[in-house]
């Protein structure tokens, strides 16, 4: 239990960092989103801010975070600026663009390789094919996963899962907190 709380404290720090950055990102949309369209405006705004936030907490270290940031940078530069801060943004932007270009180049190279259809019935090769299918699926799931080799893919997946959990947890608590509040007040009246 003790070590779990010890791990928890580091996780809590991560969550706080994520929350901070998320709030910062949400600020940028706070003026725009007074309208009622949930799906078009607000939900992507919230999600994007959350994604930028969670990616920026892991930014220097992992490839998926860099790919995610580069992706968002392409479309919503202002958001990224707000979350990161001006100076860092410039530095990050160039780095990210380079990384993302490298990733795109590699992925295109990989895509160009043609698969020669061959008839295989040995169990080992069937197993290998299954594993290959799944690795490709995993690569498609992971942001920036296309240009990775198996080893780093697994590493990145590990990190990505942890970060996704942080994100989900914080968002859930936020939603739950607002719900609790609303229910309590509802009871009061």
């Amino acid at each position, binding site marked *: 239990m003790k070590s*779990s*709380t010890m*791990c*928890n*404290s*580091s*996780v*809590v*720090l991560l969550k*706080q*960092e994520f929350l*901070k950055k998320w*709030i910062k990102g949400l600020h940028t949309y*706070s003026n725009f*989103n*007074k309208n009622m369209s*949930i799906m078009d*405006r*607000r*939900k992507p705004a*919230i*999600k994007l801010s*959350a*994604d930028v936030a969670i990616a920026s907490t*892991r930014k220097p*270290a992992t490839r998926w975070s860099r790919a995610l940031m580069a992706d968002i940078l392409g479309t919503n530069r202002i958001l990224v600026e707000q979350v990161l801060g001006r100076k860092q943004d410039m530095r990050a932007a160039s780095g990210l663009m380079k990384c993302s270009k490298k990733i795109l180049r590699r992925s295109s190279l990989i895509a160009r390789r043609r698969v020669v259809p061959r008839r295989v019935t040995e169990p080992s090769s069937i197993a290998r094919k*299954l*594993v290959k299918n799944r*690795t490709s*699926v*995993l690569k498609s*799931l*992971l942001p920036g996963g296309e240009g990775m*080799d198996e*080893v780093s893919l*697994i*590493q990145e*997946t*590990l*990190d*990505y*899962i*942890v970060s*996704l*959990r942080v*994100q*989900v947890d914080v*968002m*859930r*608590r*936020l*939603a*739950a*907190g*607002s*719900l*609790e*509040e*609303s229910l*309590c007040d509802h009871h009061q009246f």
Partner: protein
Amino acid sequence: MLNSVRFARNFGEYRVASLSKPSSHFRNLDFRRNCASRLTMEPKAEATQPHFRSGEMGFGLDEIHSLISGPPETGRNSFTALLELPPPQAVQLLVKEDFPAKHLPPPIFPSNIGLIDRASKRSFFASADNPPASNTILLASSSMKVEIVKQEPTDSQPHPNSASPAVSDQSPKSGKRKEREKKVKESNKKSKKVVANEASEDGGKKLPYVHVRARRGQATDSHSLAERARREKINARMKLLQELVPGCNKISGTAMVLDEIINHVQALQRQVEFLSMRLAAVNPRIDFNLDALLAAESGSSIDNDYMGMFTPTIWPEGQINGNRQLEYQQLWQGDELRQPGWSREEDTPNFITPETSHLSYDSSANSAPLHSSQLKMEL
């Protein structure tokens, strides 16, 4: 020492196995023991609270913990360094034919002191250290200089970072070595020979090389060794993943485990989508009272803080769904989209109530680095 080297070689038993197999076995035991204990400790919390699983994990999360607790850059170093530990142990290429009698030696494992220290701190590697230690008594020289030959370019990064003290004074040589390491297979033999030459030439200076030892009865050519090293690395990481993803422990077989991992990642991504949509619908107005946040450290849950922050302004969009609490608990197991809606508009003052939220958790380490200012924000 030379005799012992020859003895070991003639005996035909190479001992990476000590690193890759029994150590992984030990690792598994450690993992599972820790996991089992933690899981049994919080079964209910599991059901009601989407407890952040990294907290329950045994060993693997020590890595993540050290990773997360430090600033990102150092976190990266320790993270990758730690993850690099099992593989480098496995990935040690023994310089075979070129292994001249006068070649010194101490090969093996933990390729540097920093890693060894970290390894010893984690029980994870403690068991792994012992057998090789006993083995290397025969071969090891007094210093901790180790030689690393990198078959895989991917390994080349953490090792130059975590330079052993012996290597630190050879920056030009290590630079050369790095470049050599980056070429993959053609230069393997070349680098090995160069290694041998250099080793034989420079009496006192040693370059770090990773030695992979072939197990008994297995092919010892460089390609299969490299493949084996790579496979060991992948297996080590897969084990970590298995520990992380719930329900993967019992599954054997890479394809199934990958299946589970994919499902998990997809579920998490779906949850993010769903939650963001829900938050968009609720449209809370966040009265950010950070002083209250900081003050609410001892014993209160973070949900208190969230609640204190919120004065949800609810738009008239539908009925109140009474099953919403249940829904939160089910979220973790995958969910169906429900359109959240409340039929009231509320405007409550900022307050923090001690509440018995099912999502409460201990926020004792809530030393919030947030600046204490008051933000008002409408989503």
